[in-house]
């Protein structure tokens, strides 16, 4: 539970991902950047699960995609097991792919509808040459499906013949196929019915113990995060505003944004929760192309003082293991 463990599995240093906004096509002029991720630091220890929460558009998914190297970060370092992967070539990444996997949000679109489940799960095993023998591979695929709570018969099905929860299990089995150490769960349960969410969260928990996995759990649903994660980082407009152990954060939120987030949950009725407009603080989320100066939260912040408009607050360790990026928090 300690962020300062000797050698973290993943270390993200000053990560930034800016998407250029251009005009024109041939003689394109850059007219600005979308600062999707703008200077993020955190570490994840081995066997740990870090929750990354925030409103949609806050940059949490982009952070995850950078770590998976589905995007090439603009600046910053991503150290995976001590090795900087932020600018690794395509070839260098191949080895990484076996150690780091992803579970996507939408179980309907993350599976190729033209492939049978068995092929979906078996394909990475085949491509990476883990198990060249087709029969043994088939056995392994069925095992994986069973591990993920699916009948082995599903190997011959197409995704469209299955339910959402079943498909998400296939997505998990696929992620496990290469026996990775680290899995990015990108809103892995938020598209599912609440009852199914619990099943999948339990499955993820089981798998973590069974295979000694490390998760980066990206979510906007704080209740799920509380159940699964050891530590939580809260993002707002491309930056981490607060990071702490899960109970500490929930019991004692220090950043006004976190406070607003927590005040908005939980709502007992899951159906209302699922459909509720998730907008914890008053006012609109500013545009990431032109973020507010100083503290990005200041236009919406109840505590804001004049200085907040000018100085960008740094993450301070206000309590042991509890970091906050707010000059007014105590």
């Amino acid at each position, binding site marked *: 539970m300690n962020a300062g463990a000797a050698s973290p599995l993943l270390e993200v240093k000053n990560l930034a991902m800016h998407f250029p906004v251009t*005009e*024109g*096509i*041939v*003689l394109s002029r850059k007219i600005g950047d979308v600062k999707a991720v703008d200077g993020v630091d955190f570490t994840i220890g081995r066997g740990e699960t870090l929750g990354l929460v925030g409103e949609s558009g806050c940059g949490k998914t982009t952070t995850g995609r950078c770590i998976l190297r589905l995007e090439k970060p603009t600046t910053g370092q991503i150290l995976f097991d001590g090795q900087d992967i932020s600018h690794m070539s395509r070839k260098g990444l191949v080895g990484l792919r076996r150690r780091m996997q992803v579970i996507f949000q939408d179980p309907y679109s993350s599976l190729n509808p033209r492939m049978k489940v068995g092929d979906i799960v078996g394909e990475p095993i085949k491509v990476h040459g883990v198990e060249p023998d087709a029969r043994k591979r088939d056995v392994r695929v069925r095992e994986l499906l069973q591990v993920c709570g699916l009948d082995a018969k599903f190997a011959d099905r197409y995704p469209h013949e299955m339910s959402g929860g079943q498909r998400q299990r296939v997505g998990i089995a696929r992620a496990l196929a290469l026996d990775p150490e680290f899995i990015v769960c990108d809103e892995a349960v938020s598209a599912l019915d609440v009852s199914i969410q619990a099943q999948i969260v339990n499955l993820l928990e089981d798998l973590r113990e069974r295979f000694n996995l490390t998760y980066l759990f990206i979510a906007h649903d704080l209740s799920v995060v509380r159940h699964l994660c050891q530590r939580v980082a809260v993002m707002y407009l491309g930056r981490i505003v607060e990071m702490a152990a899960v109970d500490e954060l929930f019991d004692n939120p220090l950043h006004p944004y976190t406070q607003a987030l927590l005040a908005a949950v939980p709502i007992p009725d899951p159906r209302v929760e699922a459909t509720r407009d998730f907008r914890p603080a008053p006012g609109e989320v500013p545009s990431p192309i032109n973020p507010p100066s100083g503290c990005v939260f200041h236009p919406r912040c109840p505590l804001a003082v004049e200085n907040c408009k000018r100085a960008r607050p740094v993450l301070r360790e206000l309590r042991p293991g509890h970091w906050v990026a707010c000059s007014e928090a105590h």
Partner: protein
Amino acid sequence: MYRYIVTRLLLAVPTLVGAAALVFVLMRLIPGDVCVIRMGSGGSHVSQAAVDACRQQLGLNDHIFVQFLSFLGHYFTFDFGISMWSGRPVVQEIATRLPVSLQIAVMATLIAVVIAIPLGTISALRENTWLDHVVRVVAVAGIATPSFWLGIMSIVLVLDITYLATGKAWMPPIDYVSFWQDPIRNLSIVALPALTVGYRYSAVTMRMTRSAMLEVMREDYIRTARSKGLIEQIIINRHALKNALLPVVTLIGIEFAFLIGGLVVTEQVFNLNGIGRLFVQAVQNQDNVLTQALTMLVVLIFVVTNLVVDVLYAWLDPRIRYS
């Protein structure tokens, strides 16, 4: 919007250069040259000295890169060269023929619009009735009929019918005069080819109108309009047709661009002295300069028409805005 148009025009440059390179290479892949054709056309006596002199004079002996660079270079200064066959400026050759082709293209477009939009709309409104089926079969037949065959058959039909009726075969005059000079003569020359081309064109447009109408009719706001109790006629005119016109406008534009190139066969059939026939002549004579110029013209018309269509599209549909 202004920036968008400029950008699109700039994008056309590589397309034009690419087309230039392609036509340049293709024309030179064809064995033989304009000099051999010219000096040999009389029979089998080909005077080698005359051929050599001709090649020298036309610069066909220059290195191929020199030829290409000079071709491109001259285009940047709007110098389109001299026809290798006739020795006349290419601009003059084209300017003489362009009005004929444009007239046919414009008339065909008018015919297409006048026929296609009402029929396509009716077809959509009476979906899966016998009327719809008839309209669709007529439309698809228009696309399925080779235009040269239709042209030939229509000429012969006119000749045969007038012969049977009057004992003397009648056909339209064959030497073109402009509409301003003699409108009746002009129209009697152009009517048949414009109808032939227009039929195919209207068939394509009719199909598009129908499917666009069907699609629009299924959308929510039409149902809303209906539920509000508007008279169906108004719904169709105000809402559906206006929205269905978007893809139809695109199609009309794109087809217009194809039309110029597609006139090749029709002008051949009707002996019209237009761009299409000039194209065939230029290619047959291996008149590289003229062929290149005509190709560039066709590509340019295509590019510009596409641009106009896109701009029109944005103008008609307020949802689309280009940054």
